[in-house]
Each structure stands twice: as C-alpha cells, then as structure tokens.
C-alpha cells in the first residue's frame, strides 16, 4: 500500500533541532515508490539529521511526515520501522558484543521475503562469519551486516545513511550494486551519500541539501550531467576513484559474491 501518486514517503517543512541549534530549516522531500532517491550534500549539511527525523530518532519540531499513507510525524522510531522502513544508520552501528547471527536476530520479524537464510544467500560472507562478533568484522562486512539487518525488517522503504563511508573502492561498488538490486526487489530507497557520482549513477531522483535546506530537486540524470555542480558536491575527489588503479584490488574477491 502506498500513498497518493505512488509515493512511499513524503516530508514537508521539517524543522529539526539538536538542543538549541536549528539544523533543518523546512526540509521537504518525497521518495517515489519503487525508486531510488538520493539525498546529497556536504558534510554537516543536515543529511543524517534528515534521516533521523524521518525514522523518528530525532523528531522534527515542526513539519509533517507521511510514510505509506500514514502520518508518522510524532511516532517513536520502532513504530515507524514496523511500518516497513529499514534503516541503515551512519557508521553502521553494528552491535559489537553480538555475533553476526545474533545481530541478524535483533530486528523485528515482519513477514515478507527476507529471512536469515536468504540473507546468507545474498551475503555468503556473513554466513562464513556468522559466529564472529560484530567488532571482529571488517568495515565492508559491517556495512553488509547493517544492510542485512535492515532487510530483515522486510522493508518497503530502505533508508541508508552513507553506506559507502570508509569502505575500500571495490567494496563501495559492490555496495551500490546491492542498493540497485533492492530497487529491482520493489523496495523504495532513500540513499544519503557523499559519493555523488556513484549515487547519481543509480538514482532516479536527486535532492541536494545545504545548510539544512533543499537547494536542488530534480532527476538524477540531469544533476549528473551538471559537471560543475557534481564537482562541488563531490568535494575533495570523493567518488573520483577508478577500480583499476585501486591498490586494494585484491580485496574485491572477498566481496564479489557478497
């Protein structure tokens, strides 16, 4: 069930504060059902705060959030997630004291196609490491686990907060491939990223956030064509890597099947 016009999520006029500091100044955005929407912006633009407001971890003081036709503005995060919203937090937030398998048993069991067995099919590496503690995993493995954990909620909407952060280039490519795959599974995706080039390559729609306000909204392709703007967003060469000159090439084998 989606809202009007095939909208998975719509937010209007969000104002969010941390204590007294005013972070979001009337952010409005929409995530179309079955599409990838990317939210780009510099460090500190308010991207993470936007996601935290949407999932209910840092409730917006003003504004309105509708997810799958339900107004969720004042809901606690567990109710929002239970609607079918998977959340991959910034910095992964793996439970370091739990094994991989235990990490996968934390999410609410919503009915749907995803089970731990299917997760292990998609991420064989997690199956291999299922008895290892979260803290023993590499950054790439932790990111896979964070995505796997969110998928186990059987989400209709997946929100990812900088999933490529701190990962080796080839793992980043793998990660984006998985996000693309989620769209073909029919999951609506809201992807917050610093890696503008790669996000725009897979996204349908793009927003750019600056100083807590949306400064661009349009088709991802149109933004990708605006070289100057992408350059400015990408900052100091983020997303500028090429797989072939990566010194970490050898690592890719480990993740190819992931």
């Amino acid at each position, binding site marked *: 069930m989606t809202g009007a016009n095939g909208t998975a999520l719509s937010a209007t006029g969000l104002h969010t504060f941390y204590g007294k500091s005013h972070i979001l100044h009337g952010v409005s955005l929409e995530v179309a059902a079955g599409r990838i929407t990317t939210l780009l912006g510099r460090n500190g633009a308010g991207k993470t705060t936007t996601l935290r407001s949407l999932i209910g971890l840092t409730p917006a003081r003003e504004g309105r959030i509708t997810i799958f036709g339900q107004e969720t503005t004042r809901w606690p995060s*567990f109710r929002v997630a239970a609607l079918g919203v998977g959340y991959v937090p910034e910095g992964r937030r793996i439970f370091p004291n739990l094994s991989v398998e235990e990490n996968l048993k934390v999410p609410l069991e919503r009915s749907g196609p995803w089970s731990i067995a299917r997760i292990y099919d998609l991420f064989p590496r997690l199956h291999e490491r299922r008895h290892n*503690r979260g803290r023993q995993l590499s950054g790439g493995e932790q990111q896979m686990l964070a995505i796997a954990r969110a998928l186990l909620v059987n989400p209709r909407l997946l929100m990812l907060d900088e999933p490529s952060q701190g990962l080796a280039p080839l793992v980043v490519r793998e990660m984006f491939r998985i996000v693309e795959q989620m769209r073909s599974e029919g999951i609506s995706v809201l992807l917050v990223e610093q890696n503008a080039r790669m996000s725009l390559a897979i996204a349908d729609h793009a927003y750019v956030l600056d100083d807590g306000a949306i400064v661009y909204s349009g088709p991802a392709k149109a933004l990708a064509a605006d070289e100057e703007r992408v350059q400015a967003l990408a900052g100091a060469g983020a997303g500028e890597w090429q797989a072939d000159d990566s010194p970490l090439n050898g690592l890719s084998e480990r993740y190819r099947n992931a």
Partner: protein
Amino acid sequence: MSSLVILNVANGVVTGAFFVLMALGLSLILNLSGIINFAHGGFLALGGYIAFALSKYVGFLGALLLAPFLAAILGLAIEWTLIRRLYGRDPLYSLLLTFGLAFIFQDGTRYLWGAQGLPMAIPAFLAQPISDSLFFVTRYRLFNLAIVALIVALLFVLLRHTRFGIRIRAGTLDLETVAALGVNVRLLRSFNFGVGILLAGLGGVLAAGQFRLDPTMGDDYLMPSFIAIIVGGVGSLGGTVLGGLLIGIATGVTTVYLPSASEAVMYVMMAVVLLIRPRGLFGEEGMMS
C-alpha cells in the same frame, strides 16, 4: 577447624547465591535502562512476604512458584506508572525515586505484617540435614543452591538463545538502533525490569525460608549485590555471578577468623579488584557479551 571452614564456605556459597539473584536483577535493569534500583531490596522482602501470605493456602513450594511472579507484576506496574518516566534523564531522579520506593516498601510491609521478624515454614523434608557427617548443612541449603543454579542457567539461555534476550543484550549498548530496527523498546525495558524483579522476589522467598521474614531483610543483600556487580565487572552477567559467590564466600570465611571484619571484607575486595582491574573481573566495553 577445617570442618568449621567448610561450614563457613558452604554458608558463604549459599549467602552468595542470594547475592547472585539480587545482583543479576540489579544488573539487568542497570544495563538496559540505566536505573540504579535502590528499591530492589524492597522487592526482595516483598517476594518473601507475598510467599508468607500465600503459603497458608498453597504451601511453601506453591508460594515459591507464585510469589516471584506476583512481585514481578507489582514491579511492572511500578515501572509503567513511575520508573519509565525517568528513562534517559539524569540518574539522580531514578535514585531519588527508587530510594523513596524502598522506604515505602519497608513501611508498607511493617504496616501489614508487623515490625518483628516472622518465621517462614519450609517443608519438613527440606529442614533435615544432608547426612549425619554433614549435620550442619540442611537440605534446604542445597535446595537453595539448586534453584539458584537452575534460574541462572535459564537466564543465560534466555539471553543467549531467544530473540528477546538477544535484543536485551543489543540494547545494553545501543538501544536507539534496536528501536530503529522496529523493536518495541518500551516493552523490552518493561519485560527486562519484570525479569529483574522476578529474580529479587525469588531471592526473597528463598531467604525467608533460610532465615526469617523481616521488613528490612532486603537491606542485607542490597549493598553486597552492588559490590558483586562492581567486582564482577559492570555489564558482565557471568562476572556478576562470580562476584556474588566470591563475596558470599569471603564473608563466610572471614566470619571464622576475624568476625568483626566480616562486613568490611567485601569493601576491601572491591578496592583490591578495582586497583588491579578498574573495570572489574570481567568488565569490558562490550557489555553483556
């Protein structure tokens, strides 16, 4: 001499088992909700008194089964109405609240059942000594140990092998992420609180059979249980079990050689452990691992 030591080690283990029950409940509540429950001793006494009232109708064993659950239900009611309002606030608020609750429990039991101690009848077969040579150890003490061992084992199974337990362990480190994964963390905290109180209530019934009922009986266990948690390492339930037993034994043995120091010994133990391992014996950053 040596049989006296054995007697006191045995006594210490049994006393330590009460500390273990108390400390595990305190630890669960502290780790997940950040509440230092000063009313925990009050819940222990309440478990004992509820069992006392029930035992007229259902016998000691029936009361042993029922009373901890009734204490837990009362605990849940208090968590729902009072304690949950203080989650995430300055710990001072919950300290004040639970301190106040402890006094209310104490005076409540005094009002209902009187200030003087009451004997709790235990079944005749449990009151007998284990054997002629071990005449100083009653079967009841062994029974206590067996029950505590069983409950500790069940608790560990719960925490390791059920989703509920796994979510509690995850929540001790990062409750926010547990909530963002769709888990109703309000219920999780309530049930966790209930389990903690259940353990205290059970401790109360067992202690009432061992000693007697007294409105302040919980006070004798509260401080040693806090120390058990610190010695074992905050966040480590295995450490809490070990800490409780160690303190029980240390107190028991000191009673033989230096009776006047039998209470001080646990503070000395705590100081020594903290000097050598500031996080306690099994304390580590990954709590409840």
